[in-house]
């Protein structure tokens, strides 16, 4: 059951990443590229989590990957506020 939900979350994250990629293409704002990569990484992370024995999120690999993904989001926010317009 849990791995099915994880798979669905992984899929949704990848689709969201694709949308953000399109927004990046339309606006040329690298903010969207960073969000796309973050969501794609989280999607892969959740997918891998689903493929293994599921209650593994205390394994360093999984939470480090999530840290990286959220770190990208923070980086996008910092970048957005430093240069103003990165278009």
């Amino acid at each position, binding site marked *: 059951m849990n791995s099915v939900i994880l798979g669905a979350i992984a899929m949704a994250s990848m689709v969201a990443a694709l949308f953000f990629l399109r*927004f990046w293409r*339309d*606006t040329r*704002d690298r*903010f*969207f590229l960073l969000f796309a990569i973050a969501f794609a990484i989280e999607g892969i992370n959740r997918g891998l989590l689903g493929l293994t024995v599921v209650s593994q999120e205390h394994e360093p690999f999984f939470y480090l990957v999530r840290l990286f993904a959220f770190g990208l989001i923070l980086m*996008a*926010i910092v970048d*957005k*506020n430093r240069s*103003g317009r990165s278009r």
Partner: protein
Amino acid sequence: MVDDIIPEDVKQFILERIDSIAQLEALLLLRDSPQVDWTANAVAKRLYIGEQESSVILQRLCADGFLIASPEKSLVYRYHVRSPDLGQTVDRVAALYSIYLIPVTNLIHAKPRTRVQEFADAFKLKSDKD
């Protein structure tokens, strides 16, 4: 050519606040009769656009501080700017539009047709404009 004719601050205003010619026409239409309440239907008839499009435009103008809405019987809008500076800018846009129709329309048509940039702009911590 457009760069010389339209002042930079007006150009910025148009690029940020005006998404379509219909929206600009609606704004100026309501501005011409500030004591009149307009419904989306009435605006749609005057501008020869669909009522749905008209409704979206009026909602957007209201949210951006150009109009106020009064939900009496059905939703009606009236021209009322949020600040005198905004009113002045709209006046300048109106004057420019009446003289330099083509450059202003070209400027608006050159914009990307999407609001998605607002998603990224939401993460700007300091609001430099309102």
